[in-house]
């Protein structure tokens, strides 16, 4: 008989963070759309200049971090929903984390290279 263990006593902050990051991403999306309509992406040069702005870099960075955290909670939820063996879940969690950290680093590199 396998003993079932529940009671990890976390989850609220992740659930909340997913909502908060969702809102942040939505706001960022609105700003970018507004900038596009305002012609910020009319040419490659305009776009480059727009993205070089310190404030835009900062909120883009926030967006990337939000996206990664949001994705972490969401993808982890999928593994928890559908993958039952705990060992397999740990591996998938680690791979997900590594991928997301990697993506985040890569994105930061791109933003500050511009």
């Amino acid at each position, binding site marked *: 008989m396998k003993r*079932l263990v*529940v*009671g*990890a*006593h*976390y*989850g*609220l*902050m*992740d*659930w*909340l963070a997913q909502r908060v990051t969702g809102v942040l991403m939505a706001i960022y999306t609105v700003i970018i759309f507004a900038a596009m309509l305002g012609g910020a992406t009319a040419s490659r040069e305009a776009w480059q200049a727009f993205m070089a702005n310190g404030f835009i870099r900062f909120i883009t960075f926030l967006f990337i971090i939000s996206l990664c955290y949001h994705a972490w909670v969401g993808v982890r*939820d999928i593994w*928890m*929903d*559908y993958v*039952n063996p705990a060992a397999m879940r740990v591996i998938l969690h680690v791979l997900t984390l590594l991928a997301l950290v990697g993506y985040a680093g890569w994105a930061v590199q791109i933003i500050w290279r511009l």
Partner: protein
Amino acid sequence: MTNAARTVHFKIYRYDPDQDAKPYMQDISVEIESTDRKLLDAMVKLKAQDDSISFRRSCREGVCGSDAMNINGKNGLACLTAMDSFPEGKPIVLRPLPGLPVIRDLIVDMTQFFKQYNSIKPYLINNDPPPERERLQSPEDREELDGLYECILCACCSTACPSFWWNPDKFVGPAGLLAAYRFIADTRDQATSDRLDDLEDPYRLFRCHTIMNCVDVCPKGLNPTKAIGKIKEMMVRRAV
């Protein structure tokens, strides 16, 4: 009023572990009268014709929660499903509630479902010495329990919930969480923070992804998703 007979066709999930190697779908028809208004009436006729068709039933008025089953792909109570709600000419497909082990035909083993219900301590906890008379509660406070206490434990909701299908041992499920909130919302209950502690768990509560299948199927028109939302809201309020 005429009692004109008409024939109704069924496709029923059959499985008797005593006789059958594996489950199968049986095509069967029955004559019903216009007074057989509900699916359960037709099923009782069906059982008179073939006494081996097995299902649970009791009150036939939607308060006992016995005859929950999967009707044309959607969970519901046979006694509250009107015969004239079915499209003409197509067989009525009856299956056991999904996600629970089948004991026989339409009868499922509800152990896991009740285990989850029991796990939320579904009883009032108040450690003050009981007063001589009733504990007072304002009508407004009592109103908080409306839409919660009416649950009949039929399991339509939990067995319509994919999160419960995948993690029936770890996710409390909509019915259990509705019951949990029924006690959290009760001004007479003193264990609110323990109850919230117990539910603050990635599996027990947070497997709910608000897809609202539970709300869609509840034969009593209750809203477990809303109750789950309120539990989360209370957790946020106490955390921030």
